[in-house]
């Protein structure tokens, strides 16, 4: 048992609890909810076990689905984000991201912001597309994606600043 694993388990439980208890009940303007639980996938260590990330994302999503009565939409969106995470890293931090020590929970830089932005957009678009499941409502899907993305990013950045470990 190393500390990285413990930190991840704690994040998994705390983010899920916060999502279900608080963020699922915000209903801003009647239907806009932020989904900062995906911070778990975003903040997962860059060089961590990628199989573990896929499996953990799946269970994270399936538990969300259980509480939201939504079939498997959160699971699908989370697994999708977990799989494409290395590609987003490559896009945001350049090709050699694996050799650098990429730390996400630190001061906001353009690279970090672009990473979070792309990750959230991918997740939310997949989520709302599957949740609505009717191409007829594409306008609503895009509107929901944009508004929820803004909300989620804002919350993600606030949470990162709050839980940032202060060891310099």
């Amino acid at each position, binding site marked *: 048992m190393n500390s990285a694993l413990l930190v991840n388990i704690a994040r998994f439980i705390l983010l899920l609890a916060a999502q*279900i*208890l608080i963020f699922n009940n915000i*209903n801003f303007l*009647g*239907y*806009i*909810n932020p989904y900062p639980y995906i911070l778990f996938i975003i903040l997962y260590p860059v060089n961590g076990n*990628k*199989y573990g990330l*896929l*499996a953990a*994302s*799946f269970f994270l*999503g*399936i538990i969300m*689905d*259980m*509480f*939201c*009565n*939504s*079939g*498997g*939409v959160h*699971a*699908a969106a989370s*697994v*999708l984000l*977990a*799989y494409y995470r290395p590609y987003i890293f490559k896009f945001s931090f350049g090709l050699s991201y694996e050799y650098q020590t990429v730390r996400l929970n630190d001061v906001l830089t353009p690279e970090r912001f672009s990473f979070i932005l792309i990750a959230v957009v991918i997740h939310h678009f997949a989520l709302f597309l*599957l*949740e*609505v*499941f*009717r191409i007829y*409502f594409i306008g*609503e899907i895009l509107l929901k994606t944009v508004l929820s993305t803004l909300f989620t990013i804002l919350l993600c950045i606030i949470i990162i600043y709050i839980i940032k470990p202060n060891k310099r």
Partner: protein
Amino acid sequence: MQQIFNFIFKNSYRLLFLLLLVVSLVLTIQSHSFHRSKVISSANFLSGGVYERISNVNEYLSLKGQNDELALENARLKALLFNAKDSASLPKIDSVKGVDKINIIVSKVIHNSYTVFENYLTINSGSAAGVKPDMGVVNSAGIIGIVDKTSKNYATVISILNVKSQINAKIKKSNHFGSLIWNGKSTGFVQLIDVPRLASVRKGDTIVTGGQSVIFPPNIGIGTIDKVFTDNKTNYYTLNVKLFNDMTNLGHVYIIKSKDREELIKLEKKENE
């Protein structure tokens, strides 16, 4: 054989991703199909238990409103009782079998959703209390939905704010039937479709349940007509119905258990064979 193992080993990450994605997509598609086949639902001990805890806390904050609602309902029922034909001898429960056809199970909404296109409620009574799928759920103001899945102590309810829901309803004044659906736009309005042109509809008319199905008894309130649209192609009216219920704020609900239900279902099955 060696090559197959090599292939699986080399692509194991991608294969795991595809496996998990396919599993979640199958769950998604099942949840969207019309026939009930949802595997993951909040009617289980974990999410049901968590929602019950949260609802227990939230309940204190809305006690006053709930009391007012109950007092209003009591007043209405008292009025019905006192205006019975013979108020000196109040009607006794009829001992002849077949008259008391409907049982009511009281329950409480512990989780309410109204932000997506397919909304479900979770209530805190399940098969142990006699709740079964396809029972109607109402409250003092009007209808709420139909029981979808049950576990021992919890059940999920397809809200009328669900694009999959379709309920038989009629115009109270003229007895013209139609189907009640939701277009996914506003939480305060549902739509009554397929109302024949012959019907005289006016803004403000009351819409009630039709009683053609075994789920709801007839004449339970739904809402009032807000707008009338005419469809030139089909010669039917589409009515925008303003709900009596505020679906965003639900407390105690009643589940309707019709004693004739099983007999009727059996009979209809025989007819179809």
